[in-house]
């Protein structure tokens, strides 16, 4: 079934096959273009339905022998196809970004100087990054300057910029906390009281305050009665209140939200699978 890549004939045949599929894919487009709008929507709906049908059936079919049914062997090849298409989709974001900034440069729109900076950074880093990953697989040589260049661009520049960019939010939270977080209703006060207890209770300071400021017992003997004074006082420690709040009050609330998200997700999955969702497909 495989083509013997050892012989030149084999390699030529493979090149022709790959070229053939490119010609087929792009040659098909004018043919598809003749489809009327309903035909196009129908084609998209069919492709969407079949992709979903494969995984849904594989999940719902009864199993023959150990954890398998006749569709299960298809999961690994399907995984490979979806990984490749997924990576092309990720590349789409980059393609859109570069296309936008290239247009800025060409049409000299706005502050296109910065777009030049972006393009240069993109081209340099793309070369070094692809070179680096290929060199790891020993497909290309990795000279010393490439290794040092990649370290310079990745460890010393991209990583630092990325970390700095997201650390700014701490400043915004702080200034917003001063001006915007008002105790304006029962809800906001419950939220803020809980937040303060959690913020103090989950850090070592919570234990320190409970010992020295409130003078509460640091531990309770195992056989003490649950309602004895000692265990009640112990449960008033900031750390205990915070952990009880997180495990006993927060958990059911998050679970109720999960059920809402889960049921909503199932309804959404069905609508998307059957192309019922208006405005998207």
């Amino acid at each position, binding site marked *: 079934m495989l083509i013997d890549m050892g012989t030149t004939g084999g390699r030529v045949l493979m090149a022709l096959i790959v070229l053939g599929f490119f010609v087929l894919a792009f040659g098909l487009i004018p043919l598809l273009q003749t489809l009327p709008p309903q035909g196009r929507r129908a084609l998209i709906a069919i492709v969407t339905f079949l992709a979903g049908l494969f995984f849904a059936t594989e999940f719902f079919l009864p199993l023959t022998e150990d954890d398998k049914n006749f569709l*299960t*062997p298809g*999961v*690994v090849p*399907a*995984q*490979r196809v*979806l*990984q490749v298409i*997924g*990576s092309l*989709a*990720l590349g789409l974001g980059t393609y859109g970004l570069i296309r936008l900034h290239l247009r800025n440069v060409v049409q000299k729109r706005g502050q296109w100087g910065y777009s030049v900076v972006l393009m240069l950074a993109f081209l340099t880093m793309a070369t070094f990054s692809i070179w680096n990953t290929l060199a*790891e*697989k*020993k*497909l290309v040589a990795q000279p010393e300057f490439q290794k040092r260049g990649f370290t310079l661009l*990745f*460890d010393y520049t*991209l*990583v*630092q910029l*990325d*970390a700095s*960019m*997201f*650390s700014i939010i*701490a*400043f915004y*939270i*702080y*200034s917003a*906390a*001063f*001006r915007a*977080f*008002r*105790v304006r209703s029962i809800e906001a006060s419950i939220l*803020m009281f809980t937040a*303060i207890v959690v*913020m*103090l209770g*989950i*850090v*070592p*300071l*919570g*234990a*320190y305050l409970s010992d020295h400021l409130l003078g509460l017992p640091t531990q309770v003997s195992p056989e003490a009665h649950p309602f004895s004074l000692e265990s009640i006082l112990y449960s008033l420690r900031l*750390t205990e209140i915070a*952990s009880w709040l*997180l*495990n006993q009050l*927060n*958990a*059911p609330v*998050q*679970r109720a*939200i*999960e059920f809402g998200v889960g049921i909503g997700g199932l309804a959404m999955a069905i609508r998307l699978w059957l192309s019922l969702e208006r405005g998207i497909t």
Partner: protein
Amino acid sequence: MQTERKSFWDRLLTIDRRWLYLALFVNIVVFLLLPLRLPAVVSGPVRKFYNAMERLQPGDMVMVSSNWSASTIAENQPQLEAVLRHLMRKKVRFTIMSVEAQARDLSLRLAQRLAKEYGYEYGRDWAHFGFYTDLIVAIKGMTNDLHDTVKQDVKGTPTRELPVLQGIQSLKDYKMVIDVTPSGTVPDWISYRPKNLIVLYCPTSVMAAEAYTFLDSGQIEGMLTGAKGAQEYEQLLGVVGLGTRFINGIQFSHVLIILTILVGNLALLMKRLAQEA
């Protein structure tokens, strides 16, 4: 007198935000430099995490799913470092995979640095499976056939030739997966993993509150919450890592935030009282 008092609260309320930024910056620098060491109170989820890791036997196989980029390095790196130290200390075999581009190189470099310390050899004791765009289908593929799904490791060596994967056919032969992540990847591990694969979770603190429902149902068996969780875990391991170095900055910035919220509300209250008077 009347206008004088009101203007003080008004001035306070309309203070230039850049003074606030400076106050936060100085507060963190001061408390980072303070040689104050408050012992951590090890929380339940961290204790469960540690116990689950202690139950691992030498030679067990663990998957480390490292999905954090440099944007959350301060929370996820201390966690990954503590986890890898514990795995290497217990002579456990592990493989790493990433569904975030940057995470691939960050986790690879961190693991290589720690491997030298513990005499771990790439290929024999640990390996890195590289980057995947779609986590769900990657898990499903690896659960059915690891070698055919992964094909080759980061260095291009076919997985069948890696000594570390001796006797491993699929994810079902793994004992545990540890998800170190800033995003919602753990629900995918919970949903698509093989039946008996234990899930341990190292989220950034933002994602922690939502996971308490999974802790209650036992779908995850332990959790380290951000750098604070790493600090508690480092204390259990007897290691001074980044978590321990950051904790003073974290807890005293909490104090500053709480005081700020109280002052903000007090200023508004005083201003309203002054207007009514």
